[in-house]
Protein backbone atom coordinates (compact mmCIF):
# COMPACT_ATOMS: atom_id res chain seq x y z
CA UNK A 1 0.00 0.00 0.00
CA UNK A 2 0.92 3.65 0.05
CA UNK A 3 2.85 3.43 3.27
CA UNK A 4 5.10 0.79 1.78
CA UNK A 5 5.37 2.75 -1.44
CA UNK A 6 6.57 5.83 0.39
CA UNK A 7 9.15 3.95 2.36
CA UNK A 8 10.29 2.11 -0.74
CA UNK A 9 10.55 5.25 -2.86
CA UNK A 10 12.48 7.13 -0.18
CA UNK A 11 10.54 10.37 -0.60
CA UNK A 12 7.42 11.74 0.98
CA UNK A 13 5.62 14.26 -1.18
CA UNK A 14 3.55 16.73 0.82
CA UNK A 15 1.12 19.26 -0.54
CA UNK A 16 1.58 22.50 1.38
CA UNK A 17 -0.11 25.85 0.87
CA UNK A 18 2.59 28.50 0.81
CA UNK A 19 0.61 31.69 1.01
CA UNK A 20 -0.77 30.94 4.42
CA UNK A 21 1.66 32.26 6.97
CA UNK A 22 2.64 31.16 9.50
CA UNK A 23 1.61 27.67 8.39
CA UNK A 24 3.25 28.00 4.99
CA UNK A 25 5.11 30.81 3.24
CA UNK A 26 8.38 31.52 1.51
CA UNK A 27 11.57 32.93 2.94
CA UNK A 28 13.70 35.67 1.40
CA UNK A 29 15.18 33.16 -1.04
CA UNK A 30 11.65 32.09 -1.96
CA UNK A 31 12.11 28.69 -0.35
CA UNK A 32 9.18 27.08 1.50
CA UNK A 33 8.98 27.60 5.27
CA UNK A 34 6.42 27.43 8.04
CA UNK A 35 4.65 25.16 10.49
CA UNK A 36 3.30 22.83 7.84
CA UNK A 37 6.65 22.61 6.10
CA UNK A 38 8.32 21.58 9.34
CA UNK A 39 5.51 19.19 10.08
CA UNK A 40 6.02 17.54 6.75
CA UNK A 41 9.73 17.26 7.40
CA UNK A 42 9.04 15.66 10.77
CA UNK A 43 6.72 13.13 9.21
CA UNK A 44 9.30 12.28 6.60
CA UNK A 45 11.94 11.88 9.26
CA UNK A 46 9.69 9.55 11.22
CA UNK A 47 9.21 7.49 8.09
CA UNK A 48 12.92 7.56 7.39
CA UNK A 49 12.57 9.23 4.03
CA UNK A 50 13.24 12.68 2.57
CA UNK A 51 10.49 15.23 2.26
CA UNK A 52 9.47 16.97 -0.91
CA UNK A 53 7.22 20.00 -0.53
CA UNK A 54 4.81 20.59 -3.40
CA UNK A 55 3.11 23.95 -3.37
CA UNK A 56 -0.64 24.00 -3.96
CA UNK A 57 -3.40 26.52 -3.59
CA UNK A 58 -6.31 25.86 -1.29
CA UNK A 59 -8.70 24.85 -4.05
CA UNK A 60 -6.05 22.57 -5.55
CA UNK A 61 -4.98 20.59 -2.46
CA UNK A 62 -7.33 17.72 -2.90
CA UNK A 63 -7.02 17.36 -6.66
CA UNK A 64 -3.25 17.22 -6.23
CA UNK A 65 -3.67 14.45 -3.71
CA UNK A 66 -6.29 12.46 -5.52
CA UNK A 67 -4.40 12.73 -8.78
CA UNK A 68 -1.29 11.23 -7.22
CA UNK A 69 0.86 14.36 -7.37
CA UNK A 70 1.47 14.09 -3.67
CA UNK A 71 1.28 11.38 -1.02
CA UNK A 72 -0.25 13.47 1.73
CA UNK A 73 -1.42 17.01 2.19
CA UNK A 74 -0.11 18.92 5.18
CA UNK A 75 -2.19 21.88 4.27
CA UNK A 76 -4.50 22.93 7.09
CA UNK A 77 -7.36 20.93 5.64
CA UNK A 78 -10.56 21.26 7.67
CA UNK A 79 -12.10 17.89 8.38
CA UNK A 80 -15.60 18.24 7.01
CA UNK A 81 -17.88 15.27 6.50
CA UNK A 82 -18.55 16.29 2.93
CA UNK A 83 -14.85 16.08 2.14
CA UNK A 84 -14.43 12.83 4.00
CA UNK A 85 -16.53 11.28 1.27
CA UNK A 86 -13.64 11.86 -1.09
CA UNK A 87 -10.45 11.77 0.98
CA UNK A 88 -9.19 10.15 4.17
CA UNK A 89 -8.56 12.36 7.23
CA UNK A 90 -6.16 11.73 10.09
CA UNK A 91 -6.96 12.97 13.59
CA UNK A 92 -6.58 16.78 13.88
CA UNK A 93 -2.98 18.04 13.95
CA UNK A 94 -3.88 21.66 14.57
CA UNK A 95 -6.92 23.74 15.43
CA UNK A 96 -7.51 27.27 14.32
CA UNK A 97 -9.42 29.94 16.04
CA UNK A 98 -10.73 32.47 13.58
CA UNK A 99 -10.70 36.22 13.73
CA UNK A 100 -12.61 38.95 11.96
CA UNK A 101 -10.22 41.37 10.30
CA UNK A 102 -11.58 44.64 8.96
CA UNK A 103 -10.40 47.61 7.01
CA UNK A 104 -9.61 50.62 9.22
CA UNK A 105 -12.00 52.89 7.39
CA UNK A 106 -14.97 50.63 7.91
CA UNK A 107 -17.11 50.89 10.98
CA UNK A 108 -17.13 47.32 12.28
CA UNK A 109 -16.77 46.55 15.96
CA UNK A 110 -17.87 42.94 16.19
CA UNK A 111 -18.47 40.00 13.90
CA UNK A 112 -22.12 40.93 13.35
CA UNK A 113 -20.94 44.20 11.89
CA UNK A 114 -20.05 42.22 8.78
CA UNK A 115 -23.72 41.98 7.94
CA UNK A 116 -24.46 43.90 4.77
CA UNK A 117 -20.79 44.53 4.03
CA UNK A 118 -18.54 43.26 1.30
CA UNK A 119 -16.63 40.38 2.81
CA UNK A 120 -14.31 37.75 1.43
CA UNK A 121 -12.10 34.81 2.21
CA UNK A 122 -9.87 32.29 0.49
CA UNK A 123 -11.85 30.07 -1.84
CA UNK A 124 -12.25 26.54 -0.62
CA UNK A 125 -11.36 27.15 3.03
CA UNK A 126 -13.35 26.46 6.18
CA UNK A 127 -13.78 30.15 6.87
CA UNK A 128 -14.93 30.83 3.31
CA UNK A 129 -17.59 28.17 3.54
CA UNK A 130 -18.75 29.54 6.89
CA UNK A 131 -18.72 33.14 5.78
CA UNK A 132 -20.51 32.47 2.52
CA UNK A 133 -23.17 30.64 4.49
CA UNK A 134 -23.55 33.61 6.81
CA UNK A 135 -23.88 36.08 3.94
CA UNK A 136 -26.58 33.88 2.42
CA UNK A 137 -28.31 33.69 5.78
CA UNK A 138 -28.21 37.49 6.25
CA UNK A 139 -29.49 37.97 2.76
CA UNK A 140 -27.53 41.18 2.28
CA UNK A 141 -23.96 42.14 1.58
CA UNK A 142 -21.61 40.40 -0.80
CA UNK A 143 -19.22 37.49 -0.50
CA UNK A 144 -16.08 37.21 -2.64
CA UNK A 145 -13.83 34.19 -2.65
CA UNK A 146 -10.29 34.91 -3.80
CA UNK A 147 -7.83 32.31 -5.00
CA UNK A 148 -5.35 32.77 -2.18
CA UNK A 149 -4.89 34.33 1.21
CA UNK A 150 -2.64 37.06 -0.11
CA UNK A 151 -5.25 38.30 -2.55
CA UNK A 152 -7.80 38.43 0.26
CA UNK A 153 -5.58 40.62 2.41
CA UNK A 154 -4.51 42.68 -0.57
CA UNK A 155 -8.18 43.35 -1.35
CA UNK A 156 -8.87 44.11 2.29
CA UNK A 157 -5.97 46.49 2.53
CA UNK A 158 -6.98 48.20 -0.74
CA UNK A 159 -10.47 48.65 0.65
CA UNK A 160 -12.07 46.34 -1.91
CA UNK A 161 -13.23 44.19 0.99
CA UNK A 162 -14.64 45.60 4.19
CA UNK A 163 -13.81 42.57 6.29
CA UNK A 164 -12.60 39.01 6.18
CA UNK A 165 -12.50 36.03 8.44
CA UNK A 166 -9.19 34.27 8.70
CA UNK A 167 -7.38 32.20 11.26
CA UNK A 168 -6.08 34.14 14.20
CA UNK A 169 -2.54 33.10 13.34
CA UNK A 170 -2.76 34.45 9.82
CA UNK A 171 -4.56 37.57 10.94
CA UNK A 172 -1.97 38.41 13.58
CA UNK A 173 0.94 37.65 11.32
CA UNK A 174 -0.44 39.87 8.59
CA UNK A 175 -1.30 42.74 10.87
CA UNK A 176 2.13 42.57 12.45
CA UNK A 177 4.08 42.32 9.21
CA UNK A 178 2.94 45.77 8.10
CA UNK A 179 2.64 44.45 4.59
CA UNK A 180 -1.03 45.26 4.60
CA UNK A 181 -1.54 48.74 5.98
CA UNK A 182 -4.92 49.82 7.23
CA UNK A 183 -6.30 46.57 8.63
CA UNK A 184 -7.28 45.64 12.17
CA UNK A 185 -8.50 42.62 14.07
CA UNK A 186 -11.92 43.31 15.54
CA UNK A 187 -13.55 40.17 16.88
CA UNK A 188 -13.73 36.40 17.12
CA UNK A 189 -16.59 35.02 15.10
CA UNK A 190 -18.76 32.36 16.80
CA UNK A 191 -17.20 29.53 14.87
CA UNK A 192 -16.42 26.09 16.13
CA UNK A 193 -12.63 25.84 16.17
CA UNK A 194 -11.42 24.79 12.77
CA UNK A 195 -9.83 21.40 13.33
CA UNK A 196 -7.49 20.61 10.53
CA UNK A 197 -6.04 17.26 9.67
CA UNK A 198 -3.54 15.57 7.45
CA UNK A 199 -5.15 13.97 4.48
CA UNK A 200 -4.32 11.16 2.13
CA UNK A 201 -6.30 8.87 -0.13
CA UNK A 202 -9.47 7.59 1.46
CA UNK A 203 -8.58 3.93 1.24
CA UNK A 204 -5.04 4.21 2.65
CA UNK A 205 -5.94 3.04 6.14
CA UNK A 206 -2.41 1.99 6.87
CA UNK A 207 -1.02 5.43 6.20
CA UNK A 208 -3.87 7.12 8.06
CA UNK A 209 -3.19 4.92 11.03
CA UNK A 210 0.48 5.85 10.88
CA UNK A 211 -0.32 9.54 10.70
CA UNK A 212 -2.67 9.34 13.68
CA UNK A 213 0.05 7.86 15.78
CA UNK A 214 2.55 10.38 14.44
CA UNK A 215 0.34 13.30 15.45
CA UNK A 216 -0.12 11.79 18.88
CA UNK A 217 3.67 11.44 19.20
CA UNK A 218 4.25 15.05 18.11
CA UNK A 219 2.08 16.28 20.98
CA UNK A 220 3.46 13.79 23.46
CA UNK A 221 7.10 14.62 22.72
CA UNK A 222 6.54 18.36 22.94
CA UNK A 223 7.43 18.90 19.30
CA UNK A 224 3.97 20.31 18.69
CA UNK A 225 4.46 22.99 21.32
CA UNK A 226 7.94 23.68 20.00
CA UNK A 227 6.70 24.25 16.50
CA UNK A 228 3.87 26.39 17.82
CA UNK A 229 6.33 28.58 19.59
CA UNK A 230 8.58 28.81 16.56
CA UNK A 231 5.90 29.80 14.11
CA UNK A 232 2.95 31.18 16.01
CA UNK A 233 4.50 32.62 19.12
CA UNK A 234 4.05 32.58 22.85
CA UNK A 235 1.00 31.06 24.41
CA UNK A 236 -0.81 27.78 24.59
CA UNK A 237 -1.17 25.78 21.42
CA UNK A 238 -4.77 24.87 20.71
CA UNK A 239 -6.11 21.68 22.27
CA UNK A 240 -6.58 18.93 19.75
CA UNK A 241 -9.24 16.99 21.66
CA UNK A 242 -12.94 17.46 21.83
CA UNK A 243 -14.65 16.90 25.13
CA UNK A 244 -17.20 14.16 25.50
CA UNK A 245 -16.49 12.11 22.41
CA UNK A 246 -13.95 9.58 21.11
CA UNK A 247 -12.33 10.29 17.90
Amino acid at each position, binding site marked *: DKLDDIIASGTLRCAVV*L*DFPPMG*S*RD*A*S*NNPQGFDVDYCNDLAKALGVTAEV*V*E*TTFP*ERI*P*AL*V*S*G*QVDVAVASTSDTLERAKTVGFSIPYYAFENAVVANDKVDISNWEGMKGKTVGATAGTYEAIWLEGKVKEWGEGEFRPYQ*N*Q*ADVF*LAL*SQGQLDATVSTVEVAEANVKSG*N*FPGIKIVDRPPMVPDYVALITLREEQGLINYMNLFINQQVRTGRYAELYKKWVGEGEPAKLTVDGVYR
Partner: protein
Amino acid sequence: MFDTALTAKDLWFLAQGAGMTILVTAISVFFGTVLGIIFGVIRYQIGPYWAAPLTFVLDIFRSIPLLIQLVLAYAFLGTVLRLGLSGLTVACIVLTLYTSAYCAEIVRGGIEAVPLTLRRAARSLGMTWGQDMRSIVMPLATRVALPSWIGLALGVMKDSALVYVVQVVELLKSTQILITRLQEPLLLLTICGAFYFIISFPVARFGGYLEKRWSND
Protein backbone atom coordinates in the same frame (compact mmCIF):
# COMPACT_ATOMS: atom_id res chain seq x y z
CA MET B 1 8.62 54.57 -6.39
CA PHE B 2 11.83 52.62 -6.83
CA ASP B 3 12.09 52.18 -3.15
CA THR B 4 11.33 48.50 -3.15
CA ALA B 5 12.09 45.34 -1.23
CA LEU B 6 12.68 43.55 -4.49
CA THR B 7 16.08 41.87 -4.46
CA ALA B 8 18.22 40.40 -7.20
CA LYS B 9 17.21 37.01 -5.87
CA ASP B 10 13.58 37.82 -6.44
CA LEU B 11 14.28 38.94 -9.97
CA TRP B 12 16.06 35.66 -10.52
CA PHE B 13 12.98 33.92 -9.16
CA LEU B 14 10.85 35.82 -11.68
CA ALA B 15 13.26 34.93 -14.43
CA GLN B 16 12.88 31.28 -13.52
CA GLY B 17 9.13 31.69 -13.82
CA ALA B 18 9.64 33.29 -17.19
CA GLY B 19 11.87 30.38 -18.13
CA MET B 20 9.05 28.00 -17.22
CA THR B 21 6.61 30.01 -19.33
CA ILE B 22 8.96 29.76 -22.27
CA LEU B 23 9.64 26.07 -21.69
CA VAL B 24 5.96 25.16 -21.53
CA THR B 25 5.25 27.32 -24.57
CA ALA B 26 8.13 25.89 -26.57
CA ILE B 27 7.23 22.28 -25.86
CA SER B 28 3.53 22.78 -26.51
CA VAL B 29 3.98 24.82 -29.64
CA PHE B 30 6.49 22.36 -31.05
CA PHE B 31 4.48 19.21 -30.51
CA GLY B 32 1.20 21.03 -31.08
CA THR B 33 2.42 22.16 -34.46
CA VAL B 34 3.60 18.70 -35.44
CA LEU B 35 0.25 17.23 -34.43
CA GLY B 36 -1.60 20.14 -35.98
CA ILE B 37 0.09 19.58 -39.31
CA ILE B 38 -0.80 15.89 -39.20
CA PHE B 39 -4.42 16.61 -38.23
CA GLY B 40 -4.70 19.43 -40.74
CA VAL B 41 -3.41 17.29 -43.60
CA ILE B 42 -5.67 14.41 -42.61
CA ARG B 43 -8.68 16.68 -42.41
CA TYR B 44 -7.93 18.14 -45.80
CA GLN B 45 -7.11 14.82 -47.37
CA ILE B 46 -10.06 12.70 -46.29
CA GLY B 47 -12.66 15.40 -46.76
CA PRO B 48 -15.11 16.98 -44.34
CA TYR B 49 -17.36 13.93 -44.13
CA TRP B 50 -14.83 11.37 -42.97
CA ALA B 51 -12.95 13.93 -40.93
CA ALA B 52 -16.05 14.77 -38.90
CA PRO B 53 -15.00 12.81 -35.77
CA LEU B 54 -11.55 14.40 -35.80
CA THR B 55 -13.06 17.83 -36.43
CA PHE B 56 -15.42 17.31 -33.53
CA VAL B 57 -12.68 16.33 -31.11
CA LEU B 58 -10.44 19.20 -32.13
CA ASP B 59 -13.36 21.58 -31.89
CA ILE B 60 -13.83 20.64 -28.25
CA PHE B 61 -10.41 22.02 -27.45
CA ARG B 62 -11.48 25.32 -28.93
CA SER B 63 -14.86 25.48 -27.22
CA ILE B 64 -14.00 24.86 -23.58
CA PRO B 65 -12.02 27.22 -21.34
CA LEU B 66 -8.40 26.17 -21.14
CA LEU B 67 -8.66 26.42 -17.38
CA ILE B 68 -11.29 23.69 -17.38
CA GLN B 69 -9.29 21.59 -19.82
CA LEU B 70 -6.35 21.73 -17.45
CA VAL B 71 -8.39 20.96 -14.35
CA LEU B 72 -10.23 18.13 -16.08
CA ALA B 73 -7.12 16.60 -17.58
CA TYR B 74 -5.37 16.82 -14.25
CA ALA B 75 -8.32 15.27 -12.47
CA PHE B 76 -8.87 12.64 -15.13
CA LEU B 77 -5.29 11.56 -15.68
CA GLY B 78 -4.54 11.68 -12.00
CA THR B 79 -7.74 10.99 -10.12
CA VAL B 80 -9.38 8.58 -12.50
CA LEU B 81 -6.51 6.90 -14.29
CA ARG B 82 -4.05 7.32 -11.43
CA LEU B 83 -1.16 8.14 -13.73
CA GLY B 84 1.47 9.82 -11.63
CA LEU B 85 2.07 12.61 -14.09
CA SER B 86 3.64 15.85 -12.95
CA GLY B 87 1.76 19.09 -13.35
CA LEU B 88 4.26 20.16 -15.96
CA THR B 89 3.55 17.04 -18.01
CA VAL B 90 -0.19 17.54 -17.80
CA ALA B 91 0.20 21.21 -18.71
CA CYS B 92 2.28 20.31 -21.76
CA ILE B 93 -0.11 17.58 -22.88
CA VAL B 94 -3.15 19.83 -22.64
CA LEU B 95 -1.47 22.82 -24.23
CA THR B 96 -0.11 20.61 -27.00
CA LEU B 97 -3.56 19.34 -27.91
CA TYR B 98 -4.96 22.83 -27.51
CA THR B 99 -2.33 24.17 -29.89
CA SER B 100 -2.85 21.35 -32.35
CA ALA B 101 -6.59 22.07 -32.54
CA TYR B 102 -5.95 25.63 -33.65
CA CYS B 103 -2.96 24.67 -35.75
CA ALA B 104 -4.97 22.08 -37.70
CA GLU B 105 -7.32 24.83 -38.84
CA ILE B 106 -4.44 27.03 -39.88
CA VAL B 107 -2.79 24.19 -41.79
CA ARG B 108 -5.99 23.26 -43.56
CA GLY B 109 -6.52 26.88 -44.54
CA GLY B 110 -2.96 27.04 -45.82
CA ILE B 111 -3.34 23.92 -47.93
CA GLU B 112 -6.66 25.10 -49.31
CA ALA B 113 -5.01 28.32 -50.37
CA VAL B 114 -2.67 26.44 -52.72
CA PRO B 115 -4.38 26.48 -56.12
CA LEU B 116 -5.49 23.03 -57.19
CA THR B 117 -4.15 23.71 -60.67
CA LEU B 118 -0.62 23.94 -59.29
CA ARG B 119 -0.97 20.59 -57.61
CA ARG B 120 -2.33 19.05 -60.79
CA ALA B 121 0.63 20.43 -62.66
CA ALA B 122 2.96 18.84 -60.14
CA ARG B 123 1.24 15.47 -60.34
CA SER B 124 1.29 15.67 -64.15
CA LEU B 125 5.04 15.90 -64.00
CA GLY B 126 5.07 12.48 -62.35
CA MET B 127 5.54 13.74 -58.82
CA THR B 128 4.05 11.58 -56.09
CA TRP B 129 1.58 12.87 -53.51
CA GLY B 130 4.39 13.18 -50.99
CA GLN B 131 6.66 15.02 -53.39
CA ASP B 132 3.84 17.37 -54.29
CA MET B 133 3.18 17.99 -50.60
CA ARG B 134 6.81 18.65 -49.82
CA SER B 135 7.92 20.67 -52.81
CA ILE B 136 4.79 22.57 -53.78
CA VAL B 137 2.16 22.58 -51.07
CA MET B 138 4.38 23.04 -48.05
CA PRO B 139 6.32 26.08 -49.23
CA LEU B 140 3.21 27.79 -50.57
CA ALA B 141 0.92 26.91 -47.67
CA THR B 142 3.57 28.10 -45.23
CA ARG B 143 3.38 31.60 -46.63
CA VAL B 144 -0.33 31.72 -46.01
CA ALA B 145 -0.20 30.02 -42.64
CA LEU B 146 2.90 31.48 -41.01
CA PRO B 147 1.43 34.79 -39.84
CA SER B 148 -1.52 33.02 -38.20
CA TRP B 149 0.82 30.45 -36.77
CA ILE B 150 2.91 33.16 -35.15
CA GLY B 151 -0.27 34.56 -33.68
CA LEU B 152 -1.12 31.13 -32.36
CA ALA B 153 2.29 30.62 -30.78
CA LEU B 154 2.02 33.95 -29.00
CA GLY B 155 -1.51 33.09 -27.92
CA VAL B 156 -0.26 29.86 -26.40
CA MET B 157 2.44 31.74 -24.55
CA LYS B 158 -0.15 34.07 -23.04
CA ASP B 159 -2.53 31.22 -22.30
CA SER B 160 0.25 29.33 -20.56
CA ALA B 161 -0.37 31.75 -17.67
CA LEU B 162 -3.21 29.40 -16.75
CA VAL B 163 -1.09 26.36 -16.07
CA TYR B 164 -0.75 27.58 -12.48
CA VAL B 165 -3.85 25.47 -11.78
CA VAL B 166 -1.79 22.32 -12.24
CA GLN B 167 0.89 23.54 -9.88
CA VAL B 168 3.33 24.80 -12.48
CA VAL B 169 5.08 27.91 -11.29
CA GLU B 170 5.32 30.01 -14.43
CA LEU B 171 5.77 33.74 -14.79
CA LEU B 172 2.42 34.96 -13.53
CA LYS B 173 2.40 32.47 -10.67
CA SER B 174 5.87 33.44 -9.55
CA THR B 175 4.76 37.04 -9.69
CA GLN B 176 1.87 36.17 -7.37
CA ILE B 177 4.23 34.38 -5.03
CA LEU B 178 6.36 37.48 -4.79
CA ILE B 179 3.30 39.65 -4.32
CA THR B 180 2.36 37.45 -1.39
CA ARG B 181 5.69 38.06 0.25
CA LEU B 182 6.49 41.60 -0.81
CA GLN B 183 3.04 43.15 -1.14
CA GLU B 184 3.94 45.33 -4.06
CA PRO B 185 1.28 44.27 -6.53
CA LEU B 186 1.49 47.21 -8.91
CA LEU B 187 5.24 47.11 -9.38
CA LEU B 188 5.39 43.35 -9.68
CA LEU B 189 2.45 43.11 -12.04
CA THR B 190 3.95 45.79 -14.22
CA ILE B 191 7.21 43.91 -14.43
CA CYS B 192 5.32 40.74 -15.29
CA GLY B 193 3.17 42.43 -17.95
CA ALA B 194 6.23 44.10 -19.42
CA PHE B 195 7.91 40.74 -19.75
CA TYR B 196 5.05 39.25 -21.73
CA PHE B 197 4.90 42.38 -23.82
CA ILE B 198 8.59 42.38 -24.60
CA ILE B 199 8.47 38.84 -25.95
CA SER B 200 5.13 39.12 -27.67
CA PHE B 201 5.21 42.52 -29.25
CA PRO B 202 8.24 42.21 -31.55
CA VAL B 203 7.22 38.76 -32.68
CA ALA B 204 3.68 39.95 -33.40
CA ARG B 205 5.09 42.86 -35.35
CA PHE B 206 7.31 40.49 -37.29
CA GLY B 207 4.25 38.38 -38.13
CA GLY B 208 2.43 41.44 -39.36
CA TYR B 209 5.42 42.35 -41.48
CA LEU B 210 5.57 38.88 -43.04
CA GLU B 211 1.87 39.01 -43.75
CA LYS B 212 2.22 42.33 -45.50
CA ARG B 213 5.23 41.25 -47.49
CA TRP B 214 3.78 37.98 -48.64
CA SER B 215 0.36 39.30 -49.48
CA ASN B 216 1.99 41.73 -51.90
CA ASP B 217 3.37 39.12 -54.29
